[in-house]
């Protein structure tokens, strides 16, 4: 007979594990990755590979060499950060830009807070924002915004389009640009390529993950089905953006972008489905999650409409990340309420 093991109950464990959850997130991100590989080929593969590899290596190095403890790269969380970072960068980002991003994400945003589970801010987003602020030209492609040379999908030469698009402005950036020039909203929206179908399936502006709304929605549905995430955060973000942008649009449709355009824009979907729902940096309870989502929605529209940047999701999520400890003060509804005895 073996030496008997004694431990407190429960004596069995469910099938959940951190690695499995992270694996599911990676699977959910695959459609978006594949779409970007489909359109950009090697450069997208290069982006994703370098980013993932860099994140994993940074994490391993920091834990093993600097912190002298067992490495936890096996839980795949660094891979998730790597993929998310890749999806948040323009496809033709130079390798050093990706490396800086990976270092900021893993080294500064994650490990210096104590590693997985301890970070206050979403690592991939911190990296994106740091890069956005430090290398605005590379990150937003403001150097290039001439739609007639084929910055949108559907124009003659796909290859040259892809090449151009990597440095092309995002649809929102383009809209903002045009508005600043005094072009009216109706005219802007008439630009070929800004149609909803374009947004749903493939638009070529912006970062690698923003290409196709459908791919992102597919991943989101997968996460929901696998019960990795609850829909509250994502839905409240989308609903808030839709309602808020809708109010503005109804107020003056010549100055404000219509709400569907806002919602379908890849950046928002990527943020709402995969960045805001990050376990570590989002609230625990449904109530907190809804407030978190509303906050992100409001800030996003504010920045997009009135701010200097065309895109506000990243900032909105980071700002709301900071409120998570506060939002976690919302206790869930208890089973047993206090007795009314006096």
């Amino acid at each position, binding site marked *: 007979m073996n030496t008997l093991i004694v*431990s407190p109950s429960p*004596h*069995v*464990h469910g099938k959940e*594990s951190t690695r499995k959850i992270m694996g599911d997130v990676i699977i959910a991100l695959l459609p978006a990755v594949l779409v970007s590989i489909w359109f950009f080929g090697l450069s997208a593969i290069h982006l994703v590979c370098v980013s993932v590899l860099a994140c994993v290596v940074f994490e391993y190095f920091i834990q093993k060499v600097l912190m002298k403890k067992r490495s936890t790269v096996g839980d795949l969380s660094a891979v998730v950060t790597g993929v998310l970072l890749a999806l948040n960068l323009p496809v033709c980002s130079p390798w050093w830009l990706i490396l800086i991003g990976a270092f900021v994400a893993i080294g500064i945003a994650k490990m210096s807070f104590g590693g997985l589970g301890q970070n206050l801010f979403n690592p991939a987003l911190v990296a994106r924002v740091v890069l956005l602020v430090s290398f605005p030209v590379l990150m937003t492609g403001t150097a290039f915004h001439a739609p007639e040379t084929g910055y949108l999908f559907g124009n003659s030469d796909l290859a040259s389009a892809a090449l151009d698009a990597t440095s092309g402005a995002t649809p929102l950036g383009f809209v903002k640009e045009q508005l600043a020039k005094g072009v009216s909203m109706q005219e802007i929206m008439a630009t070929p390529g800004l149609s909803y179908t374009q947004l749903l399936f493939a638009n070529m502006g912006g970062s690698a993950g923003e290409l196709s709304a459908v791919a992102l929605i597919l991943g989101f549905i997968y996460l929901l089905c696998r019960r990795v995430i609850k829909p509250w955060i994502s839905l409240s973000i989308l609903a808030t953006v839709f309602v808020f942008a809708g109010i503005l649009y109804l107020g003056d449709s010549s100055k404000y972008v219509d709400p569907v355009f806002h919602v379908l824009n890849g950046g928002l979907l990527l943020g709402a489905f995969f960045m805001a729902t990050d376990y570590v940096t989002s609230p625990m309870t449904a109530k907190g999650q809804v407030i978190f989502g509303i906050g992100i929605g409001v800030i996003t529209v504010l920045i997009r409409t009135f701010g200097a940047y065309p895109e506000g999701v990243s900032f909105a999520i980071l700002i709301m990340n900071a409120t998570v400890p506060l939002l976690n003060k919302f206790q*869930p509804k208890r089973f047993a309420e206090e007795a009314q005895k006096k």
Partner: protein
Amino acid sequence: MRTFRMGGVHPADKKISKDAKIEKLPIPKIVYISMAQHLGAPAAPCVAVGDKVKVGQIIGNPTGFVSAPVHSSVSGTVKAIGMVNDLAKRPVNTVTIEVEGDEWMEDIDRSEEIVREIKLDKKEIVDRIKACGVVGLGGATFPTNVKLSPPPTATPTCVIINGAECEPYLTSDYRVMMEMPEQVLIGGTILMKALGVDKYYVGIEENKPEAIKKLSDLAPKYPGVEIVPLKKKYPQGGEKQLIDAVIRKRVPSQGLPVDTGAVVQNVGTAFAVYEAVQKNKPLFEGIMTVTGDCSKAQRNFLHRVGTPLSFIMDYCGGVPEDASKIISGGPMMGKAISNINAPTLKGTSSILYMTEAQTKRKEESNCIRCGKCVGACPMGLEPYLLNKLGKAGMMDELEEHHVYDCIECGCCSFTCPAFIPLLDTIRQSKAAVMKIMRSRPKK
């Protein structure tokens, strides 16, 4: 289909021994009858070394309101009275009896015949249940007569018979429902009469369709009973969860279940109540399961209380070689056995063998704040937070976050993807906080 409304998990649905009929376990040569077989004050032995005792004779008197008498499960001579280690290697006052023959007390009705007519009145029933040492057999072994004497502030409205058996592997309740369905229903009727209510429910999880059918077929004969099929979800058999599932009422924090009007009794208890009231048979036998994926036998037994666990294990072919954990009770809330020579108790429901691979705890990693424990907690607590506060020893905050509501079901530890043993810490914190709360002067 009904179920409780908050939290819960789905452990693998395994009931390997469910088709094994209840067998009578042979009587061992020597039995060790513990004086602490119930929640509350242990009984005081009322026999002396050398005394001859008969089956069903009282050998331990209750020593308080929440206490129960203990009866001899065998006939023979008292060999010793003193400390014997229980299954957790803790010394417990125990009467050791050497078995001679099988001579029962004359006033016990040993016939197989089902007695349907209830002759005793309300008070007599409660007294009889008390005298026969009936305790709750669902796990907590709370003296049944105490539950049947609710405080004057509460008005009972119904009885709920707990046939959920939501723990994997355990099948003793299921076998009782399959083989003694009428007795269970009569037991329920007796309980109803004892409380002066006219409604009782039998809650059974959907993974036991035969039992649901069997009892439903018999139900029309017994007025007041309603068989309630329940969705399979752990911890449905928890008292508070079952009340919520069946009558949609929530036990208030730190209140009694009867505050909702419901009195919950296990099916095993209902059967014991039937035997005590209709057959005048004290509770000295129990039904238990020997099971486990690596177990050599999958059987259900009627055992005499006080039989050494090792006797049962040997009877079933010995401890399997690859078993590295033996659990008394289910895998979610059962106790790991460290002393296989410990005797069975009234509430012993199983010997469950587990292999190392099944039960090995994986190494704990960082909390990823996924909130799965919060979602799984059937009491609506925040286990991750309680764990953190508990480790820091922050008693006031623990109390603020209602650690005392915890029912120790283990859903949080079960579901944690980072393998954090949340319940280990929370259980300790809860005990510490409750100690502080009790030490406070009452207002």
